[in-house]
């Protein structure tokens, strides 16, 4: 399986937000999309999920043109996690997670991606009968992620800030669950704000800023101190734990005292 973006331009109402974006992702890839607020990460992810047509350019999954597929065929290949999952009505956790499997016929064996297995994996079993209206933001994100894993644990996972609202324990649980899908052959593309997390979690990163991809590649090649300082304009320092990507953190004292 190969996901290929070629010369994509994205934007709203004819205004171009970012252009000339080309990216490749193969089975097992976890590609983290980094960059400042408003750089177009969410729009790019919606485009990859087939929900917005780009101003120009193509997205292909193997041979299939994403925008030529109808919703059900696309849903069998690609799952999308919205940064603000929403549902109107007091649906229960389990009902929402099972929505990920509605296109599947009963005979499909889905193993670790069966609704009950995913509920257990993301520690949602104990709240599976709680209605959505009573959940916290972090719990809602975990439910929406579970639904995406049920839908496409073996396909493409397009995740927009999946971990932003989670506590550390649940973040690790969820990040590992996504990693497990990648190891089994899924393609993961996620917008992430935590650079240290992106450095450890991803196999590739791409930095979107000023309407284009500033840099992309392996985390250790891209996320260097000099690149991060140039891109963010904020002084960085080593956290004293070696030279790896992710060992460079913002120097808050220097940044906030200036």
């Amino acid at each position, binding site marked *: 399986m190969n996901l290929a973006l070629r010369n994509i331009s994205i934007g709203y109402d004819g205004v171009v937000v970012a252009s000339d974006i080309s990216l490749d992702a193969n089975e097992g890839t976890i590609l983290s999309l980094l960059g400042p607020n408003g750089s177009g990460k969410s729009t790019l992810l919606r485009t990859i999920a*087939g929900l917005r047509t780009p101003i120009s350019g193509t997205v292909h999954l193997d041979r299939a043109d994403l925008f030529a597929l109808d919703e*059900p065929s*696309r849903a*069998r290949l690609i799952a999308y996690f919205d940064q603000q*999952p*929403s549902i*109107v009505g007091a649906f229960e956790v389990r009902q929402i997670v099972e929505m*990920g499997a509605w296109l599947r016929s009963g005979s499909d064996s889905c193993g670790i991606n069966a609704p009950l297995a995913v509920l257990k994996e993301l520690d949602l079993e104990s709240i599976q009968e709680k209605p959505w209206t009573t959940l916290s933001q972090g719990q809602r994100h975990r439910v929406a992620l579970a639904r995406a894993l049920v839908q496409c644990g073996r396909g493409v996972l397009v995740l927009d800030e999946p971990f932003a609202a989670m506590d550390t324990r649940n973040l690790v649980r969820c990040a590992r669950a996504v990693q497990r899908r990648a190891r089994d052959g899924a393609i993961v593309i996620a917008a992430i704000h935590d650079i240290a997390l992106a450095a450890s979690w991803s196999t590739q990163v791409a930095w979107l800023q000023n309407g284009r991809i500033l840099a992309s590649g392996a985390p250790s090649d891209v996320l260097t101190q000099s690149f991060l300082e140039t891109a963010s304009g904020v002084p960085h320092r080593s956290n004293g734990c070696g030279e790896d990507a992710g060992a460079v953190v913002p120097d808050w004292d220097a940044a906030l005292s200036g």
Partner: protein
Amino acid sequence: MLGLIAVVIGLVLFRLVLGRTSDGTLSLDLPSGIALQLRSGAVFSGALAGACLGLAGLLLQILLRNPLAAPSVLGVTSGAALGVSAATVLSVNAGSIAGSSFAALLAQLGGIELIGAMVGSLCSLFLLGWMARRRGGIDPISLVLAGVVLGAVFGAIAMALQWMLPPHSRADVSLWMMGRVPEWPNVGVAIVGAAVFSLVLLSALRQSTALDIASASEDEARSLGVRIGKLRNTLFVGAGLLTGSAVALCGPIAFVGFVAPHLARIVVGVRSRSLIFAAPLCGIIVLVGADVARLLIPTSHGRLPVGILTALLGGIWFLRFIGRGREAWS
């Protein structure tokens, strides 16, 4: 669900045996002949209109992702009533000029009301749908405001049209505008209404899982594989036809379509598969129940039009619902 069916059967039987003796006291008797015909006619009209409004309200609430939505709240019943007024004015004027036998036949079959109500409700729904989709969406409260304003505008136009009618028929029309359950339902309207209800019910049932998923945001629903455009188009038109049928039968009855889906959710939960049956049943309970209540309330000059009772009940429920705040639903 069985409980709902039991309540419906109980209400229907009660409505059938409930009568008033000539000195105005209530009586329970087994009617025969003309009395039985009148009472079963009223039961049939109330049940069909209640079921149509309940299902229409449910579909609008789901498709617009707005628990405040309902045909009357969004001005759709007013649009249908305007359609009926316009059609009546047209037919009265056309009738006085041509007196064609076709127009007379159409009038006898209730065709005037039916066509007017259908066109009126569909037009107002399209207007509303267009407003809701412009600029990528409209928040629930603003949509309700838009609906209220639309309803007021439609009402004003309908009143202006009534002044174009001869004075003797004005009183009939303004009584009709309050909403009532007819004891002699028009056969043509009843048949079309029943057919519309069955078709929309089946269509909604076939798409019930997609309807559940459409409660999520549009992006999420589409990415889960729901053909949201097709779903909206078919069932939006369905809701319009249901409202048109109910208005052609009973006039613009308010709030039944708002109350019924909420009542149904309390009984059977949020799954569309159950709600598609429960909301029409609750619509029947509300409308036939209001019809029974109006018979029990003594007034000196005839009995209250049923629309006044449903508006009182529904209006209070609506205000209570808004008072609880949006945390209660999203």
